[in-house]
């Protein structure tokens, strides 16, 4: 019986594994191979050459990497703080309104990200919606709202909001009400209930939401290009340039590999640190 179940389990996993290997692992390996290709050779049959990684350091690409990581981090933290109260309301307070809110947030995903970002550009740009109104009413204008780092972070927060909100609401929904009530009965203040009960017990949702937003925001391109002008060049933009204008595939691949490696290490480290089963108090 047990053996049969194990065999069935293996069989069931085959399609998913095959798909992952073909569409995820294989391209990754190709990119990894490209990244060690000597410049101008354009063949995979060669001795590995790590000069592209050297270029990454010497040509200052690490700055783009740091900008990407910093802005993704800032967006994740801001998203967590602003999503928490709303997610808490969705999970514990609003009843039917939760559905309305969910539909509302999901609907925004129906419109392409670029179009939504262009909307913000038109709203914030000089001579745009806000600037125009401010000028008409008060004579003053909205100077420098676009093309800086804060507006890029704003764009990231705006675009990745659903990716934080929903996992967070899911996580908070898992916090048992009686644990909150018991904590209160045992003397805990609202703040203590938050730190002792709500945050640790909704950790799976927090981890998933934060990883989603951080990983997606690290690889984000459109926010920096559209809202940021090119105030800073993010890593994804460098990768794009290297593959297109630069025609330097080894460099593009090396940049990609570095980004993937950093994000993967962070993700694996976070997930491994948090024992999802024990948090949820699952019975063995």
């Amino acid at each position, binding site marked *: 019986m047990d053996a049969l179940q194990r065999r069935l389990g293996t069989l069931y996993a085959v399609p998913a594994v095959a798909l992952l290997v073909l569409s995820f692992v294989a391209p990754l390996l190709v990119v990894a191979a490209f990244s060690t290709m000597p410049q101008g050779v354009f063949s995979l049959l060669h001795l590995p050459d790590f000069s592209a990684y050297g270029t990454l350091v010497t040509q200052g690409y690490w700055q783009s990497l740091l900008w990407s990581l910093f802005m993704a981090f800032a967006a994740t933290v801001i998203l967590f703080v602003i999503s928490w109260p709303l997610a808490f309301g969705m999970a514990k307070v609003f009843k039917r309104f939760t559905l309305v809110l969910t539909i509302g947030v999901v609907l925004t995903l129906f419109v392409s990200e670029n179009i939504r970002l262009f909307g913000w550009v038109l709203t914030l740009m000089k001579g745009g919606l806000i600037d125009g109104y401010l000028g008409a009413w008060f004579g003053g204008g909205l100077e420098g709202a676009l093309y800086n780092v804060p507006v890029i972070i704003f764009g990231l927060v705006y675009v990745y909001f659903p990716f934080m909100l929903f996992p967070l609401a899911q996580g908070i929904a898992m916090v048992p009400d009686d*644990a909150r*009530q*018991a904590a209160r*009965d*045992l*003397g805990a203040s609202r703040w203590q209930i938050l730190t*002792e009960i709500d945050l640790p*017990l909704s950790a799976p949702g927090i981890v998933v939401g934060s990883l989603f937003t951080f990983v997606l925001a690290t690889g984000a391109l459109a926010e920096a290009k559209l809202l940021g002008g090119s105030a800073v060049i993010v890593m994804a933009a460098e990768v794009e340039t290297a593959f297109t204008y630069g025609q330097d595939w080894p460099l593009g691949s090396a940049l990609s590999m570095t980004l993937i490696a950093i994000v993967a290490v962070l993700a694996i480290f976070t997930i491994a640190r948090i024992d999802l089963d024990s948090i949820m108090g699952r019975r*063995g």
Partner: protein
Amino acid sequence: MSQNQPILRLAGLLKKFNGFTALDSVDLSVSEGEFLAIVGPSGSGKTTLIRLLVGMDEQTDGTIWLRDERLDTVPANERPTCMVFQSLALFPHRTVGQNIEFPLKIRKVDAARRKERALELLNLLRLPEHYYDRRINECSGGERQRIALARALAFDPEILFFDEPLSALDYRLRKTLEKELKDLHQRTGKTFIYITHSLEEAMVMSDRIAIMRKGQFEQIGPGEEIYARPQSRFVAEFMGEVNLFPARPGEGAHAFEGLAVDDKAAAQQGLIAAEGAYLMVRPEKVRVLEEGERADFTTAGTVHAGYLLGSRRQYEIERGDQKPLIIEIVQDGSPPLADGARVRLGFDAGDTHLVERD
């Protein structure tokens, strides 16, 4: 502090939910160190009452006093009382030790002192000290009960409330824990208020029982008193197997349905068949009469079914279209009554009790 001053006093406590009166202006006094059980069927208002007492809900009207201070205006987390939840509500992400220490951590007691107290409580609850580092999900049902209790005791409450914490356990474990709880009450000297729908549980543990019905206290008193002298049919039937004979005031001063009565004996005991009253007799007080043997109240019927209850045997006696009579006979080696046998039954006026209302 005088021993006579009640530790807890409810005055006209009223709770309505959208027009439905869950708690109907109840008054209650609980004395220091008492073990009070509040018993009632579901929907009788006992859960509403405890929610008001711990501050999880707000009353519509009335007051709650803890000694000389208003309790109902104090927020739940500042009340010096504590509750053991029906679900126990242990924190799954914390170890046994961290669960017990929780109220101390909230009060910012230092870690060494916290641990010392947690180990003391583990000992008090007869749990091994190495459980301190266990995870909650590695503990059995009975162990979790004790951990929840230890956590509540760590809070050092003025009054400890229990919301049916034993209801989910199997019979044997429940019996053991009932006794442990009673023992713990004696050792700690704390005031315990215990909500349950099981009268058996209430009888085993408590000093006093308050029976709830439709949002009010139907009767409050020691278990023996409630068992022997219920004031209403509701309480009489709630307190286990009972035979009730409706009064027939039109047929005589001491006439009860289906019974032949010795008027003198009944008059001596003051058993007046007033309108709406019932004559109550417990199954173990009814005896099978020999040929020619007399009793103050007599009746006859056919043995319908017998059930063995360990040391006693219970029979249902059919009496025409009246409610079957329930009797219990101590097993003394004599042969059991045969199914369908015709028997004459009797009991004495001194073993009965007059229940005055429904």
